[in-house]
Structure formats: structure tokens, C-alpha cells
């Protein structure tokens, strides 16, 4: 729910185009304190462009971005946000603790707090034993963990994660999820983009579906409920059928009468995604 008391980010009527081609059209989003908000959309939907405007790397053509009452440039100067940009690599010739320290210090965290924050963040992502290890010697998944540790260190008010788990194994992904949830529980607002719909479903308090413009918004369960069907899988006839909620009871009654084994599955967020964007997964 839009709540101005604990709102961290507000994006109003945002437009952005490159060489006359619109990338963001009339985008309106908000993120509250202690909330994980995912932005989902096909490749080329303008998610990263939106985030780049939020962290001040791009200037919007039209519209407004307010972060804790400040414009992005001012908010960045005040050190209220931390970011893991898309496809970024850490400084591979620094040690893990040094890398986290570097970004924490750029955010202006007082020197006295840095050491404790860094240790805490490294432990949270499960790299406690690797603080003095060169990043270059770590696996790809662990390098992503270093970036996430750098982002959550010292509890910034806003954390922006642009595809933080891309290309990493299930175990490291789980560590990143735990770290993100822990940051949320400590009061940070988190904006996440991901192509793993299951990840968004697992982590998000709210989800925006976008393709240049925002097409749908709500909690994962609210979005799932917008699909009016359930999937019934059984040993009888068509193995899997989708039926409207209204018809589900009669279908189930029929299956019970026939003493057929069956299961009922609610739509997933992925079903919503495919319903909205089709299964081509490219922006149109």
C-alpha cells in the first residue's frame, strides 16, 4: 500500500527514451521501508533503464524520482542507497573485506562503524571464512555474494539489486535470498530485478510487471489470484486441465466420484508472467 510515512522511493510519471525509442513510459512505482519489491519483465522491457535512473546514472526525459525526499543525485551523495548494477564484477584483486569496506566508505559510513559492518555483512552472506581471501580466487557465485555483502553492509535505507543471482548455483542463490531477507527484516527497502520468477515469488512483498510501462502491480498472491483458473492434474483423461474457479468444484466432484487420484494447483507467478507477456520473453 502506498504510504507516504515510510515511503523510501517514489517514481512519478517517468518517461525515458533512447534515440526516440521509448524505453520507459509513464512509469509509476513506489517502495516502502522494510519491503522487497521486484520488477519483472521480458528482456528489453526497460527494467535496468528504470533502475539506472533511480540510482542517478541516467536522467529521465520526464517525470520525477524522489528518494527519501531527495533527488537521486542528492540521495546518492547522502549515502542512503547501495547498488549491485547489472553484470557488474567486483574488484577482483581486492580481498573480500576490502571490497566491502570500499563501497561502505564511498557511502560515507563513519570510519568507526566500518569494521563491524563489514564483518557483519560478510558473515550474513556466509563468507565469514573468506574475508582475507582475494576475490580473484573465489568462484563466480561467491563473487556475486561479495557484491551482495557490499550492498547490505551497514544497513542502507535503499538497496537496488539488478539481477543479483544471474548464473549462480542454487546454494549461493539461497545464501543471497537469505541475505536479502535479512536486509529487509532490518528495515531496508529493496528493489530487485530478476529473470527467475520463482525467486521473485519467494522474496517479494510486491511485484511490478513491466514492459516499458507498468502493466500490473501487487503482491505475488494478489497477482496469482488475477488468473481465474486452477490447474487440475489427474490420472483420468487429459492429464492436466485448466478450469475456471467456478467450474473447479464440479470437476473435482466428478473426479472424486470416479475415484481418480488428482491434485489442484493454483496459478504460479510464472503463469501470470506468461499470461501477460506470452512465452517469447522479449519486449515488444
Amino acid at each position, binding site marked *: 500500500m502506498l504510504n507516504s510515512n515510510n515511503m523510501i522511493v517514489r517514481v512519478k510519471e517517468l518517461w525515458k527514451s533512447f534515440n526516440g525509442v521509448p524505453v520507459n513510459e509513464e512509469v509509476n512505482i513506489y517502495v516502502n521501508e522494510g519491503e522487497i519489491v521486484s520488477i519483472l519483465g521480458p528482456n528489453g522491457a526497460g527494467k535496468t533503464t528504470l533502475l539506472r535512473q533511480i540510482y*542517478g546514472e541516467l*536522467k529521465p526525459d520526464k517525470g520525477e524520482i524522489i528518494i527519501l525526499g531527495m533527488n537521486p543525485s542528492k540521495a546518492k551523495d547522502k549515502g542512503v542507497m*547501495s547498488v*549491485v*548494477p547489472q553484470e*557488474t564484477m567486483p*574488484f577482483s584483486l581486492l580481498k573480500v573485506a576490502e571490497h566491502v569496506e*570500499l*563501497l561502505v566508505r*564511498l557511502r560515507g559510513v563513519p570510519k568507526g562503524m566500518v569494521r563491524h559492518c563489514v564483518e557483519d555483512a560478510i558473515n550474513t552472506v556466509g563468507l565469514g571464512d573468506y574475508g582475507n581471501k582475494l576475490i580473484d580466487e573465489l568462484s563466480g557465485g561467491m563473487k556475486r555474494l561479495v557484491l551482495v555483502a557490499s550492498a547490505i553492509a551497514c544497513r542502507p535505507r535503499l538497496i537496488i539489486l539488478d539481477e543479483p543471482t544471474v548464473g549462480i548455483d542454487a546454494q549461493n542463490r539461497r545464501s543471497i535470498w537469505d541475505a536479502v531477507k535479512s536486509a529487509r527484516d532490518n528495515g531496508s527497502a529493496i528493489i530487485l530485478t530478476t529473470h527467475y520468477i520463482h525467486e521473485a515469488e519467494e522474496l517479494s512483498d510486491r511485484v511490478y510487471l513491466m514492459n516499458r510501462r507498468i502493466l500490473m502491480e501487487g503482491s505475488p498472491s494478489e497477482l496469482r489470484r488475477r488468473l481465474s483458473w486452477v490447474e487440475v492434474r489427474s490420472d483420468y483423461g487429459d492429464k492436466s486441465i485448466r478450469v475456471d474457479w467456478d467450474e473447479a468444484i464440479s470437476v473435482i466432484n466428478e473426479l472424486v466420484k470416479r475415484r481418480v487420484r488428482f491434485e489442484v494447483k493454483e496459478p504460479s507467478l510464472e503463469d501470470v508472467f506468461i499470461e501477460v507477456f506470452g512465452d517469447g520473453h522479449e519486449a515488444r
Partner: protein
Amino acid sequence: MKLGNAYTIAKYIMLSSRHWIYASIGLTLVFPALWLTLLRIIGNPQYMNYFIVGTVVNTSFLIPFIGTSQDLAYFRRVSAVYTLMFSNGAGHWDIVLGYIAQLITLNLSSIVSLLILSILMMNASYDIVQVLATIAMAVFISLSSALLGYALAMGIRNYRIVNQASQVIPWPLLLLAPVYYPIAVLPPVLRYISLALPTTYMALAINGSLSLSAAELLRGLVGLLVYSSASILIARYAIIRGEVNG
């Protein structure tokens, strides 16, 4: 611009350079010692001044120019470390100043070493004022060259082009300017061309500081100021263009 951020960036980039210690020792001590020894064997002391001017210009121009253009283009276009630092609180000029500060710190030792070794090995008669003036000029040349490199890194989006251009550009700049030899040996046409090259003013500044010639020093400084200002303007334009066009 926040000087604290520039200091932090310089410090951590220096920490990440610790693995290049052998190359640093080679550049700082082995390279100047080797060349001075060769110069002594060849036995042409008249050439020593040109050699020192040329080597100080070469070191304070080439490494900052190539290093800044290639590293910052790589940070910005490939590893996205530039965006990582920018999005986490550093401004564009914090990043470039931090990078240049660490580069000058690491590079300066080889210039100091060259001047000291010249005095020790070749009996060059430089007093403390000449040495300090030359070091100050070398810092200014490094800053100016690094700004040229930054303008190249920011102005061209294709990292591979920056990489190649940064290796090609310095050679005509060093060969067509009176860096390693007096301007009198250049053909008349090249003398006019050399007036448009930043390396000419770098050589003037170093020659002026080693010979304590105020007029030469001033001409060199003015030329470098013009090039530095142009680099800052180009980089600033590229930054603004990047904010609009991505």
C-alpha cells in the same frame, strides 16, 4: 566532488595493485638504471639532457595516458566497476581523481629514481630546486595526460577502440614533438605541427624546470593548461551525453 571519496578510491585501487610489485620495481629502478648505464657506455654526455627530458616526459605522459584510458574504459564498459562505485556514492570526478592520484603516486617514484640515478651515475648537476621543480612538472604532466586519457575513455563507447587508440596515439605525439631531441632537428613543417601537440609543451615544461628557464616553463604550463581544460570539457560533455543517451 568529494576529496574523501577520491582518497578512498585511490587507496583501494593501490591495494589492488600490490600484485604488480615486481613490475613497479622494474619500472622504478631497473629501467632507468639500465638506460643510464647504456648511455654511459655509449659515452655521449651531451645526449643525457635530452634523454632525461624525454624519459621524464615519456614516463609522466605515457603511463597515465594509456593507464587511465584503458583502465577507466574497462571499468566503465566491461567490468562495470565504474558503475558500481558511481552508484554507491562516488561522483564521476571522484572516480577519475582517485584513479589519477594512485597512478601518479605509483608513477612518480620512477621519475624521482631517474633524477637521483642521473645525479649518481652520470654526475648530472641538478640541485634540489631543479629536482623539485621537475617532479612538480611531472605531476602536472601526469594529471594532464590522465585527463586526456579520461576524455578518450568517456568519449568512445567501444572499449576495444579505446584500447587500440590509446596505444597508437602516443607514438606520433612522442616522435613528432621535440621530446627526445631539440626542435631544431625537426624539418620546418614538423616544427609547426609540433606546436599543436601536447607533448611539445610537456617537453618545454620539463626542460624549463631542469634548466630553470622561466620562459620555457611558462610556455609549457600554458600549453598543458589548454590541453587539460579541453580534456575536462570533452569528458564533461561525454558524461552529460551518457546521462541522456545511456
